[in-house]
C-alpha cells in the first residue's frame, strides 16, 4: 500500500512537471519534449513487437513514415480537414500498410522476419522517392496547413503555437501509450508473450499463432502511424530522408534496447536517454549518429538488459528480493 502511494505521488509529480514545462523553459526545449514523447510512443510500438512478441522489425519506419506521409498529403489536398481526422488518417494508413504486409510476414520468424520488414521499409522509401508528383521525391511534402483543434461551437485552439501543440501531442501520445498498456494487460497480451516464449505451446492451446502475430503487427503499426502523424504536424515537413530512411527504423530499436526491451516503460527511458544524448552531442559535433551507434554497441555488449534491466538488477542486489519474479512483472 505504501509503495502504491509513492507511485501515485510520482505520477502526479510527473504530470505537474509536464503541464508546467512549456511555461518554464523556452520553445526550443518544449519542442524537444514533444519529439521525445513522439519517439517514446514509436519505441513502445516497436517494443510491442520486439519485447512482447519476440519479433525484430527492421522496417518500422514503414508505419511511422507511412503515417507521416498520409497525414501530410491529406492536409495538403483536402482543404479544411480537421486535426483529429488528420491524425487518424495517419494511423489508419499505417494499419492498412500492416494489413497488406502481414500475410507475408506472419509466416516467417527470426532473421527472415527482420529481413522482410527491412525490405518492406526500403520498398516504401523507394516508392516515395520515385513517385514525385505525389510525395515530392527528395524534397518531400512541406508547408501544409496545420488545422486548429476545434470542437464546433465550443473552442478552437491554434496548433501552430508550440505550447498548444505540446499539450495536444502529449495527450495523443499519452492516450495511445495508455491504450497499448491496457492491451498488454488483457488476456490477449498474455498470449503474445506466449508466442515469444513458446509459439508451439500457444498453438497447441488452440490459438492461431499467425493471426495473433498479424493482430499485434497491425496494432503496433497503427500506433506507430499515429506517432508519425504527430511528427508530421510538429515538423510541418515530411521527406523520405526524414521519416523513411533506414536510420528511422533503427532508432526505435536502439531506444527500446537501451531502455530495456523486457519492460513496458523501458523504451520511454531509452527515448529519454537518446534524446538527451542527442541534445548534448549536437553541442559538440554534427556526427550525432556516430556517438549514438557507439553507445548502442556498448549497451548491447555490456548491458544487454538495458537501463531498466540494470536498475532492476541493482535493486535486487541492494534489497534482496525474491528472484522468481519475472522481469515483466518487476517493471510494470
Amino acid at each position, binding site marked *: 500500500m505504501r509503495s502504491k502511494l509513492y507511485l501515485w505521488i510520482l505520477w502526479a509529480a510527473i504530470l505537474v512537471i509536464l503541464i508546467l514545462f512549456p511555461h518554464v523553459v523556452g520553445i526550443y526545449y518544449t519542442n524537444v519534449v514533444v519529439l521525445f514523447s513522439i519517439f517514446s510512443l514509436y519505441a513502445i510500438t516497436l517494443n510491442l513487437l520486439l519485447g512482447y512478441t519476440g519479433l525484430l522489425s527492421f522496417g518500422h519506419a514503414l508505419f511511422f513514415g507511412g503515417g507521416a506521409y498520409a497525414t501530410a498529403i491529406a492536409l495538403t489536398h483536402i482543404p479544411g480537414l480537421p486535426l483529429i481526422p488528420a491524425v487518424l488518417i495517419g494511423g489508419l494508413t499505417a494499419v492498412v500498410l500492416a494489413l497488406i504486409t502481414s500475410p507475408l510476414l506472419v509466416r516467417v520468424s527470426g532473421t527472415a522476419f527482420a529481413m522482410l520488414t527491412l525490405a518492406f521499409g526500403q520498398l516504401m522509401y523507394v516508392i516515395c522517392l520515385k513517385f514525385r508528383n505525389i510525395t515530392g521525391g527528395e524534397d518531400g511534402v512541406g508547408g501544409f496547413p496545420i488545422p486548429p483543434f476545434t470542437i464546433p461551437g465550443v473552442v478552437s485552439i491554434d496548433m501552430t503555437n508550440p505550447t498548444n501543440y505540446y499539450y495536444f501531442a502529449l495527450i495523443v501520445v499519452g492516450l495511445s501509450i495508455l491504450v497499448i498498456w491496457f492491451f498488454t494487460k488483457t488476456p490477449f497480451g498474455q498470449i503474445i508473450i506466449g508466442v515469444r516464449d513458446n509459439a508451439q505451446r500457444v498453438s497447441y492451446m488452440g490459438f492461431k499463432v499467425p493471426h495473433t502475430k498479424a493482430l499485434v503487427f497491425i496494432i503496433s503499426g497503427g500506433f506507430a502511424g499515429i506517432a508519425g502523424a504527430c511528427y508530421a504536424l510538429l515538423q510541418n515537413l515530411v521527406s523520405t530522408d526524414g521519416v523513411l530512411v533506414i536510420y528511422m527504423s533503427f532508432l526505435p530499436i536502439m531506444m527500446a534496447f537501451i531502455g530495456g526491451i523486457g519492460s513496458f516503460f523501458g523504451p520511454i527511458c531509452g527515448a529519454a536517454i537518446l534524446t538527451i544524448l542527442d541534445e548534448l552531442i549536437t553541442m559538440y559535433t554534427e556526427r550525432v*549518429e556516430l556517438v549514438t551507434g557507439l553507445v548502442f554497441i556498448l549497451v548491447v555488449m555490456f548491458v544487454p538488459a538495458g537501463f531498466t534491466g540494470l536498475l532492476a538488477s541493482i535493486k535486487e542486489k541492494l534489497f534482496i528480493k525474491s528472484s522468481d519474479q519475472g522481469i515483466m512483472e518487476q517493471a510494470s
Partner: protein
Amino acid sequence: MDSTIAMYVAQFINGMAYGMLLFLVASGLTLIFGMMGILNIAHASFFMLSAYFCHTFLELTGSFWLALLLAPVVAAFFGILCERFLLRKIHAFGHIPELLITVGISLVILEGVKLFWGTEPFLVATPKTLQGFIWISDLKYPIYRVFIVGFAFFILGLMALVLYKTRLGMVVRAAVSDADMVNALGINVPLVFMLVFGIGTWLAGLAGVIITPILTVFPGMADQIGMDAFVVVVTGGFGSLIGAFIVSLCIGELNSFGIQFIPKLAPVLMFTFMAVVLAFKPTGFFGERE
C-alpha cells in the same frame, strides 16, 4: 544486328555485370549467415569502406590495381576486428543482440566515413588499360563492364576451388551445416568463423573497388547494394551459395531490363520477385532453415 537486339544484348551484359557484383557481396553475406546464423547488417558497409579506401589508395599511389589488391584487404581487416572483439564476445547472448550489434557497426562505419572523407561524392576514373569500347558484332560496348563480368567469374572460380577442393573448404562447408559437430571433432571453429568473416568482407570489398569506376563513391552507396544483397540472401535461401548465385543474376537482369522498360517501377520489381518466392516457399529457393 538491328538496334533492338543490340539494346537487348547491352542490357543483358549490364544486368550480368551487376548480378555478378551483387553475388560477390551476397556470397559473403550468405556464408556468414550460414555459419554463424547472423545476418550481418554491416556487410554492405564494408563494401562502402573498401570503395573509400580505393579512392584514398588511388590518390596516394595512382595505381588502380594496387588499390584493387589493398583496399579489400584493409576492409577485411576491419571486418575481422569487428568479429573478434564485438561479435564473438556476445555470441552467447543469442541472435538478436548479434544482429543489433551489426546495426551499431553499420552506423559507426557510415558516420566514420562521413567524418574522415566528408559527405561530398568522389569519382574514380576507369583504369587506363580498361578504357574504351569493344565491338560485339556492331554493338559498341564499354570494356570495363565486360571486365567486371570476367573478374567476378574469376573470383567465383577461385572461391569454388577453395570451397570444394581444399581441406579448408571442406571444414567451412561442414561448419556451415553443423558448427557444433565440427567443434566436437577438434577443429577450432571460432578461428574458422573469423576466417569466413574475413573472406566474406574481403569479397564485399572486392565488389566495392570494382564498382567504383561506374558509380560515384558517396556515403549512401552501401544502401542500394546492401538492400539488394539482403533480398538475394532471403530469396535464394539463407546459407545457400547456389541460391545466392542464381538469384543475384536474376536480380541483376531484372534491374537492368526493369530500368529499360518500366523505369518508375524498376526498384519494386525486385521486391515483388522476393514476395512471390517467399509466398510459395518461406525459406527461399534453396533454403532449408529460416
